[in-house]
């Protein structure tokens, strides 16, 4: 019926086909060159990205799938994080993943396909299914070191908590559907206002639905208090997957959240509709995330756990932009996630390489890194400083935007809290820098990352700096995405 618009599915379909091709290729060609499949996966992502440029704009199935600017923006983030995760995986693919390399890359691609569908979904069912497609491959990927107890334990935790959250989310979605009789976000939006206008009230069921949905998506976001799984899973999972989890999967949560709340339930963002407003709930959770994430990160000794807590805190900042529920807020969230992609993926890439070369995830072992591997240390420093929000790096502009949105929306207390915790966060970020630069120790041998890894790091650094100094392009794009929502 909308056949002419089917072309907007081309990027997703292509990525799916690449995944299939990888599965088949891996079966057929018996892994002579372990890198080959990786390059195919990278090429698949790259081509998908190019296809995305040509095939976007338009809706399918009554808006069930809409390839709008918001989705394109996030799809770029997903593809970027998948690209960097796969790039980083080269470091471990030769050693730790002896078998099923094809499946490993293929599952990453499938998960990315799920994210892409999710980001385009304007309907609860598609959204839910897309979310599951995102998550289920990740369950497998987290447990991919099958003989490693940590990895398996992480897989179990991720699976149980994930499925649990999925059920909670589903319960919430069902209530939302029940209250409005529609699964389309537009329908939900209209019907809720119709109900309110007709009956003069909506009732606490909406609270139930909203909290359940927040809890369900909060799992993906690792938003406090639904974050408990994150440190364990981040620690146990293969490091590139951890990076992918912390960026791609989070971005998926972010867009799901923004679709449902900032679009469908926008009327309930402020306390006009008290007590049916979600703004204050998210604000509380965001502040909890910033406090708990940042403070707990202070004393972590494992870099992956530290980054886990850091990313818990980071999502708190994102949520500040989200509660603003404004053009600026959405733009800020988009920009934030975009920079976060580079910074966090970069940091995890470094953690991957470091672990691969030294077999350690301990922050203590980063001591003196600047002397043996200055490039490596400098990259890490830039990533960490960007995460901390120090100008002129991208992280600063991102934080600025988020806080601006918060202030604009009247959440001054939240912004002050966020800023205070940002100061706290600097302490643990700086702690690693301190280790790398101020420590008198000199590591035995330099770490020589592969050319690809260097390239990825360089791209990440360049992105952080360039878009920190000239945020215009990305920010305009992100502002453009906000037009998807009618504020």
């Amino acid at each position, binding site marked *: 019926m909308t056949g002419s618009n089917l072309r907007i599915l081309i990027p997703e379909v292509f990525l799916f086909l690449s995944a299939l091709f990888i599965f088949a290729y891996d079966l057929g060609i018996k892994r002579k060159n372990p890198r080959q499949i990786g390059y195919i996966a990278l090429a698949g992502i790259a081509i998908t990205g190019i296809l995305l440029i040509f095939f976007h704009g338009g809706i399918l199935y009554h808006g069930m799938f809409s390839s709008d600017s918001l989705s394109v923006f996030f799809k770029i983030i997903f593809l970027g994080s998948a690209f960097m995760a796969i790039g980083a995986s080269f470091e471990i693919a030769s050693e730790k993943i002896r078998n099923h390399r094809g499946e490993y890359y293929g599952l990453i691609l499938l998960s990315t396909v799920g994210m892409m569908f999710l980001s385009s979904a304007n309907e609860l069912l598609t959204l839910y299914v897309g979310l599951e497609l995102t998550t289920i491959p990740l369950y497998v990927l987290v447990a991919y070191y099958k003989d490693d107890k940590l990895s398996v334990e992480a897989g*179990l*935790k991720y699976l*149980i*908590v994930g499925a*649990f*959250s999925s059920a*909670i989310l589903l319960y919430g979605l069902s209530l939302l559907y029940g209250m409005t009789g529609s699964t389309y976000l537009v329908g939900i939006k209209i019907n809720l206002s119709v109900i309110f206008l007709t009956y003069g009230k909506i009732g*606490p069921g909406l*609270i*139930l639905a909203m*909290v*359940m949905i*927040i*809890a369900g998506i*909060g*799992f993906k976001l690792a938003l406090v*208090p*639904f974050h*408990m*799984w994150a440190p*364990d899973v981040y620690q146990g999972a293969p490091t590139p997957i951890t990076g992918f989890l912390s960026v791609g999967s989070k971005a998926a949560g972010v867009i799901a959240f923004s679709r449902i709340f900032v679009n469908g339930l926008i009327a309930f963002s402020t306390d006009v509709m008290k*007590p*049916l407003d979600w703004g204050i*709930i998210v604000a*509380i959770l965001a502040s909890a995330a910033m406090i*708990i994430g940042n*403070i*707990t*990160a*202070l*004393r972590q000794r494992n870099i992956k756990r530290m980054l886990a807590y850091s990313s818990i805190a980071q999502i708190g900042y994102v949520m500040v932009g989200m509660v603003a529920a404004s053009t600026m807020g959405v733009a800020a969230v988009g920009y934030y996630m975009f920079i976060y992609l580079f910074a966090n993926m970069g940091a995890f890439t470094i953690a991957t390489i470091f672990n691969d070369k030294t077999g350690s995830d301990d922050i203590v072992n980063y001591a003196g890194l600047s002397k043996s591997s200055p490039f490596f240390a400098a990259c890490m420093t830039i990533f960490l400083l960007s995460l901390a929000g120090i100008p002129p790096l991208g992280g600063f502009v991102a934080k600025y935007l988020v806080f601006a949105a918060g202030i604009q929306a009247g959440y001054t207390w939240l912004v002050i809290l966020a800023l205070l915790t940002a100061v*706290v966060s600097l*302490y643990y970020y700086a702690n690693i820098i301190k280790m790398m630069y101020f420590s008198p120790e000199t590591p035995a041998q330099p770490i020589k990352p592969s050319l690809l890894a260097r390239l990825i790091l360089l791209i990440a650094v360049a992105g952080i700096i360039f878009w920190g100094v000239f945020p215009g392009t990305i920010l305009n794009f992100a502002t453009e995405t906000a037009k998807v929502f009618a504020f």
Partner: protein
Amino acid sequence: MLENTYLIPFYPLLAFVAILFFTRWKERLSSYISIGMVLIALVHSLFVLAAMLSRHGLPMEKAIPFITHPSLHLELGMYIDPLTAVMLMIVTIVSSCVQIYSIGYMHGDPRYSRYFSYLSLFTFSMLGLVIANNFFMLFIFWELVGLTSYLLIGFWFEKKSAADAGKKAFITTRIGDLGFIIGILILAAYAGTLNYQQVFEKVASGVLAPGIITLAGIFIFCGAVGKSAQFPLHVWLPDAMEGPTPVSALIHAATMVAAGVYLVARAMSLFVGSAEASTAIAVIGVITSLMAATIALVQNDIKRILAYSTVSQLGYMIMALGLYGADTALGHHSPGFVAGTFHLMTHAFFKALLFLGAGSVIHAVHTNDIQDMGGLSKKMKITATTFFIASLSIAGIFPLSGFWSKDEIVATTAGHPVFMFLALTIAFMTAFYMFRLCFLAFTGKPRVQEKYDHAHESPNTMTWPLMFLAFLSIGAGWVGLPWLSHGFSSFVYHEQIHHSEPSYILMLASTVVALSGIGLAYMIYYKQRFSADALAEKFKPLHTLLYNKYYIDEFYNIVIIQPLLKFTDFLWWFDAHIIDGLVNFVGWLIIKWADIKQWFDQYIVDGAVNGMGYACMAGARLFRYLQNGSLQFYTLIVIGSAVGLIIYRVTSRGFIYYLLGASIMVLIRSIIRTSGMEKASTETNVQD
């Protein structure tokens, strides 16, 4: 030449710069440059004096802007009037003498050149101070004088006492300057200008409220108190004798300490606006004078005696000026202004002579203690003679210069019996202690033979200035002879010429007092009719008190300095521990929170799950192995907080119940676990 008076300070400055940067390595040349420049200044000053005389004291003023502001206009300029001209003369003459004298005195000193550069710098500062046309500029040079005196007092800085003395001098005078600055601030704020003439006009025209004038006057006088070593800030001057003796002569007799008197004289138009301030000045002056004179009675250090004598004489002048201010404010006539300035001049010469003479003695015997001297007149004729002349002059014996000026001061006190009595007492004591010094040092038998044997007359460079100054000590007073058309008082006066008629009774009285002082000293120390020691023994408490200078230094040390140092230590501790501690504490708290959270996870959370007793249990590790359902704890948190949020939004009261219930649950859980420990452990065993 008058227009170029501003050049006068620059001659020595030039010498300073030249020595510092160019001729420091050539000692002779350095001293010659320095002396040459000061002589040029002297000549120039002479011309200025002449010009001033020829225009009958008509002042002239010239200024360039320093900083221009709508509310305040600061300038650098010169204001030449007879007072200035006389001061220029005093400074250049004494400075020249001292510098020439120093050639001999400082001979062989390793920092010879630097000494002369400092002297030049000092002369520059002093001359600048003198020609200033406003309080701001005065203050600038005032401070520079302080600096150079610091450098010169501490010249032999290897000696700890010298370095200490320099510091003490600087800081003590700075305390006075504190008041000076405040006075200037008051003037700037209320008068809107710091120019002498403009300020005085405002005082005279009544623009300034009397209270303000009093306040400003007293505060400005604080500066003079510091610099002129008046009570209670006199403590630095005796210590300052640690410097080379010529320096003492230059700074602590003739010039720098006179700056305070000069300030009072210069600002007289301000003080006459306030009888209160003037009276305060007079009282301070007389107290200082009396106190210093009494102390000087019992000291044994030759330079210290002279130092206290200086303090005393300065107090004398201050008293005269204060009385003049008070009298004029009340509409009476008074010769005080002339008396003060006149005495300033004569005192400069004979005190410089005394110090230089003392320097000559010290140079010869290498001791400061007069008890170790004796009979030196035989070996040091010129020194002894000139010293005696100066002593007579300071004692106020006719017709030496001191007689005339002192007489005028006594005349000033005519309307104030208490002051007069005290003034005469001081005159008596002055005569006594000066001749005590003379007799002990120059007459009688040598008490320490080896020192005596070693003694010799000083070289010519040192004796010539002595003789020249002796000449001045004798004759300088004659410019003020009442019978010679009141030369001085018709030249240097305040607002209107006022000649005091010579009061022969007073002259007689003061001469008698002076002579009796000399006589007493003669009896005790020359004829030795009475034993000085016996007297000291008889008045032991008094003697001890005087000998220890009224314990003022100790008092300051105990009451101000030590507490201050203690306080700074406390503050430092406070800063490092409390303020910084507060900051660190917050940081610590935040970090600790992470620990607490970890601890919480470890003990409370685990404890809630495992049971609180887990820590107490012997088989804790085994038990822990069984338990810690962290995964399910995560889900518990997820759903628990979701439910909490729902209840929170639906009903806030329910939320409280919910929280309460949850915490009770956790509590009960822990209690149960603690008590039900054994059961759990048996189960563990079963599984294993």
